C-alpha cells in the first residue's frame, strides 16, 4: 500500500469521483472485501438450520 500513489500521471492524479485520491479508492476496496466476508459469515451463521 505504501507504493499506491507512486505511479501517477497528470491525468491520473487528483480526485477520483467521490474519493480524494487513488489511495482512498484502494482502501475502500480493502474495507469492502472485509465487509463482504463479514456479511457472508453472518449469512452463514444466521441461515444455518442444520440439525446435526
Amino acid at each position, binding site marked *: 500500500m505504501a*507504493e*499506491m500513489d507512486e505511479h501517477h*500521471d497528470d491525468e491520473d492524479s487528483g480526485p477520483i469521483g467521490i474519493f480524494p485520491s487513488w489511495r482512498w479508492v484502494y482502501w475502500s476496496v480493502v474495507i469492502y*472485501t472485509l465487509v463482504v*466476508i463479514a456479511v*457472508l459469515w453472518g449469512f*452463514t451463521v444466521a*441461515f444455518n*438450520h442444520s*440439525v446435526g
Partner: protein
Amino acid sequence: MTGIDWSVFAVYFGGVLAFAWYQSRKNVGVEGYFLANRRLPWAAVGLSVMATQASAITFIGTTGQAFDEGMEFIQIYLPQPLVMVLLCVLFVPFFYRAKVYTAYEYLENRFDAKTRSLTAFLFLVSRGLAAGLVLYAPAIVLSVIMGWDETVTILIMAAVTIAYTLMGGITAVIWTDVVQMLMMFVGIGVALFILFTTLPSGVGVGDVAYIGGIQEMWTSIDWSWDPSNRYTIWSGMIGGFFLALAYFGTDQSQVQRYLTASSLKQSRLSLIFNAFVKVPMQFFILSIGVLLFVFYHFEQPPLVFNNAEVAVVMESERAGDYRALEVEQTQIHGERRAATLDLLDAREVGDQGRIAELQRAIAGQDEALVELRQDAKAIVADVRGAASNDVNYVFPSYIIEYIPVGVLGLLIAVIFAAAMSSLDSELTALSSATVIDFYKRWFNAGATDDHYLMVSKISTFVWGLLACFVALYAGQLGSLIEAVNQVGSYFYGSLLGVFLLAFLVKSANGNGAFLGLVAGMSSVFALSLVTEIAYLWFNVIGTVVVLAVGIAVSAVTGGRDGGGGAAPA
C-alpha cells in the same frame, strides 16, 4: 420454443450484428483492430472484463454446483477485489506506459525475446483449445436440453462471433460484450424472479432461506483448515488470489481489455468497477442454484438432469436398477414435500417441538435423496464408461420445464451471449499474440499497417475455425482436451511468477526469468504426479518457484545486465 421465443432469439442475434457493424466504423489500422485506438471509457472496458470471465459454463455450471453443494464456491471469488487493487497499483501502470499490444511484448522490453516467445506460445496453446471448449460446453448442453443439433448450434454461435469480431475488431467485441453482460444481469434477475413465482403460494423469502439452511446450503464461509475440502476461506483467499492475479494480470484475453481504455485512470476504473460488482454477481448466480434446491422440495426433480444420459441408461441392462431408484425417489420426495409444508405451518404457529422434529425428518430425506442421485450418477457412469457431468444440466433443465413463453428465449439468448462474449475476447487475444508476438516479431517486421491489419483478420478467422474444429471434435478429443486443460493449470502460476519477477525484482534478467518459468512449470507438473494437492495451490507453488529460481539464476548470471535482455523490436 414458441414463435415468441424464437423472435427474442432473432432480435438478439440481429441486434448484436447490427451493433457490431455500427461500432466497427470507428476502427482505424492495427491499433484500432486490437486496442480500439486506446480510447474506450472505463464502464465499457469494465463490463467487457466481466463478460470475458463469465462464460456460459459460469452461468449454467455454477448454478448446478450450488444446487448440489450450496454457496461455498463463492469463496474462490472473494480475493478478486484485492486482486483488482494490486493490478491497478502494480500491473496496469507497467503495461499502459510501455504502450504494448500484448502482455508478452512487455516481457521482451524487460527481459528478452525467448521469455516473450515462450509465454506467448503457452498462451496460444492453452487459449486456442479453451476457445473451442467455450463453444462446445454450452452447445452440448443446449443440444441435450433443447433437442437442437450440436453441430448447428456450434456453427451458428461461431459464425456470428467470428463475423462481428472480424468486422469491428476489439471495438465491436467490447461494445457487444457490454450488451451481452447487461443481458446476463437481466437474465440473472429474471431467473431469480421466476424461481420465486414458481414456488407454491405462501412460500416467501424467509421460508426459502430457512429450507435451504436445513442442509447448510447458504454456508458461504468455511473457516476450516481441512486440506481435503476444496473450497474454504483459506484456499479461496490464498489459492484463489494467485489464480485471479494470474488470469487478470497475465492472460492476454484480459490484459488486452484494459489496454483499450482512453487513459491509465480509465483503465484502473474499469478494474475497480469489477472489484465492487463481481462478488455480488456471483452471489446472485449461486443463489439461483440454492433456490432450485428449495424449489425441488415442492416439485419432483429428475434423478439425473441430463436426459440424453438417462436415455442411454434406459437402453442398457441397468435400466431396471435406474427405475428402482426412481420409484424410491418418488416415495421419499413425496414424504419430504409433505414434511416441508408441515414445517412451514409449524413455523407459522411457533410450535418449536414440531419444528425440530420436522427439521430432522427433512434433513434425513435430503440426505437420502442426495444418495439416490449419487447412485443414479454411478449407474450412468457405469453404462457410459465416463463420469456424469450432470451439474451443467440442472439450470437448463429447469428453464425448459418451468420458464414462461418469451422469457425462455431470453434466457437461452443469455446462455449464447455468455459463450459468445468469452469467445470473441479469446479470438482477439489469440490473434493479437499471433500477429504481434510471432508474425511481426520473427517473420515480417517492416510491413505496412494495412498488411498487418489484413494478417490480423486472417489470424482471427483461422483461430475461429480452429475453435470450431475443437468444439466439433471435442467429444472424440475428450481425454486429450482434459489433459491440455490440466497442463494449462500447471503454468498459470508460473506465468504470474515471471511477471512478478519483471515488476518487483530489479536485478532479475532474461535467463533467470526463462529458467524460472521452466522450473516453475516442471515443479508443478512433478508435484501433480506424486501428491494430491488441490489445483488452486498449483498457482501459489508455481509463482514461488519461478521467483526463487529466477532470483537465484539472475544473481549467478550477473544480474540485470547479464541475461541477454535484447532491445525490443
